[in-house]
């Protein structure tokens, strides 16, 4: 049923429909509306979960580790400083192969303190072993939660997943979202069936220590699982499409890309702006298209190389920067295109909530056509 809802409330509703048994989170702007809504659902017996009001984010995710290992479906949400505080726990959750789903309402990292959007927070955890989904709009943000649970609980994957949606730009925006019914979700997402759990009747040890004789292989297995997740995502996304009409089988999605000469590559809500800019440029006869990356981990290298095989140039937009190097998406897209002669230019933009408009996108297209890139875009030179 189509409803006009705030993004955070749509996400909270989706989480509720996934029936997590333990929710553990700590409030931080702009994630607060999600966890407040879930607390409200628990208080009104709409969600049968134990809601642990922890004292910080490190404990939020640690409690999820315990609850997941004991055999419950769990949920958390955070952003920015909160995610940074979870750094150690994130690696640990993936290493223990626990299928935790966590929403990230993407926000910049201090200093300077900023509550506004960019994607530096989750990008900084790209090496942690978590699957990472990035949503363009609130419909996608909502649906990706069902898919995330389905994929990460699959016994051939067993990895945690972050569903990332842009703070404020999506989390606080009201737009129409088609919400599934409980019946629909129950048909799509079976109850949590842990591969192994803490159980006195069948004792196992979780999180042991490994000498150099074993550690290397553990990491290899995690990497393999992340790569296997590709196929599982495709299957789960297709099944979702068959059942509900919205197909998420593709890890990357093209927009007017087939005959494009210039391709823009981007993630998250900026893709909506880019699509509008493309429509206007197309009307002027400029052959521009978009490649949206929906799944950043596992990284869809082959799909990206395939989708960009016929373009003349590529502009990659990053709302993050690996300081001292380049935007993370640009680095990885260039790696995906290694061996091709297509020039790839990166543009770091929109950090800490700086608005990105259609005219900016058009300007970037002009820059990449001139071969100018690998730069911060939209700097206020008068401040430097």
């Amino acid at each position, binding site marked *: 049923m189509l409803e006009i809802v705030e993004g955070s409330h749509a996400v909270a509703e989706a989480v509720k429909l996934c029936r997590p*048994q*333990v929710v*553990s989170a700590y409030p931080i702007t702009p994630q607060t509306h999600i966890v407040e809504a879930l607390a409200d659902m628990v208080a009104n017996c709409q969600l*049968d*979960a*134990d809601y*642990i*009001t*922890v*004292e*910080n984010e*490190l*404990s*939020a995710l*640690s*409690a*999820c*580790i*315990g*609850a*997941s*290992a*004991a*055999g*419950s479906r*769990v949920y958390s949400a955070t952003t920015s400083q909160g995610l940074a505080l979870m750094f*150690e*726990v994130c690696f*640990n959750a993936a290493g*223990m192969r626990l299928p935790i789903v966590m929403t990230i309402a993407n926000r910049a990292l201090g200093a300077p303190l900023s509550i506004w959007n960019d994607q530096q927070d989750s990008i900084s955890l790209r090496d942690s072993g978590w699957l990472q989904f990035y949503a363009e709009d609130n419909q996608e943000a909502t649906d990706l939660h069902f898919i995330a649970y389905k994929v990460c609980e699959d016994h051939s994957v067993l990895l945690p997943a972050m569903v990332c949606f842009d703070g404020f730009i999506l989390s606080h925006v009201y737009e129409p979202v088609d919400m599934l019914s409980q019946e629909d979700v129950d048909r799509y997402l079976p109850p949590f069936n842990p591969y192994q759990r*803490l*159980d*006195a009747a*069948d*004792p*196992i*040890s*979780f*999180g*042991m*220590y*490994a*000498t150099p004789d*074993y550690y290397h292989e553990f990491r290899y297995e995690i990497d393999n699982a992340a790569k296997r997740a590709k196929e599982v995502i495709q299957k789960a996304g297709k099944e979702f499409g068959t059942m509900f009409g919205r197909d998420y089988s593709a890890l990357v999605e093209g927009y007017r890309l087939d005959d494009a000469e210039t391709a823009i590559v981007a993630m998250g809500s900026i893709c909506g702006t880019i699509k509008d800019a493309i429509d206007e440029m197309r009307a002027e006869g400029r052959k521009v298209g978009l490649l949206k990356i929906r799944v950043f981990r596992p990284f869809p290298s082959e799909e990206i190389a395939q989708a960009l095989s016929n373009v003349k140039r590529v502009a990659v937009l990053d709302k993050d920067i690996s300081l001292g190097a380049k935007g993370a998406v640009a680095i990885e897209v260039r790696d995906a295109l290694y061996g091709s002669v297509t020039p790839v230019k990166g543009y770091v933009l929109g950090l800490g909530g700086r608005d990105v408009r259609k005219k900016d996108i058009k300007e970037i297209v002009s820059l990449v056509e001139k071969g100018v890139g690998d730069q911060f875009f939209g700097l206020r030179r008068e401040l430097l």
Partner: protein
Amino acid sequence: MVDKTLELFDCGHRACGGCGAALAARLVMKGAGKDTIVVSATGCMEVFSTPYPETAWKVPWIHSLFENASAVASGIEASLKKQGRTEKVVIMAGDGATFDIGMICISGAFERGHDFTYICYDNEAYMNTGIQRSGATPYDASTTTSPAGSCSFGNKLPKKDMPQIIAAHGAPYVATASIAYPADLMQKVEKAINTKGPCYVQVHAPCCTGWGFEGDQTIAIAKLAIETGLWVNYEMVDGKVVKVKKVVKKPVGEYLTTQKRFRHLFKPKRQDAEIATIQAMADKNFEKYGIEIRLKKE
């Protein structure tokens, strides 16, 4: 009733011969029983008991990080509750994990009132990383980060009163115990397990490697700590001390001379002022807890 024949912490682990913490694990598990899920913090016990692919634990066991054991336990307890399961949750953490880095997680978990038993095995320093001081290290002990030297007598700070901090959170049952008194230790663990809510037992667990003594002296040294009043065994129910272990008082020197970590107080020359300061700390314990047994003069 504690089943003393129950062995849930198995042999073959990698602890030093004479390790007080290993003995503590074995005794705690006898008190806890087999329907227990153990959460360990990073530290000696975690490392010596679970070198992959081997484990000494015959109960379900999980280790996540150094500082988060009580948060992990909170999640486990919440999950068990939701599933209608009845296993007990026991945390096993060192003094560093408890007194220092885990404080925030501990405070949150005890405030929330989860039903678990927190065992702090207290070997009075960070042993796993090479004998650095912790908030549990006693006054004047030499460690690798509080070394005795030409202008230092070692650790400058007194031991933090962790049981009081836990009791201030409203924990229904808080106790201290020692590996030198196994029956008492097992009973306290059993009591903690069977008390609803978050309970705390701090177990004195001498470390031969870190304190500097021979592995066959562990129990004798643990006993001396109690007899000198430098460690007090007591029980608190709802914040009030209800039971203490009384002793015939011995001077602190008898305890201090057994361990290399206090050697600088006696060699090259006896540091009377420092020993007197430590004696005053013990005297304060005798007074505060009323633990002295006065023998009748004949």
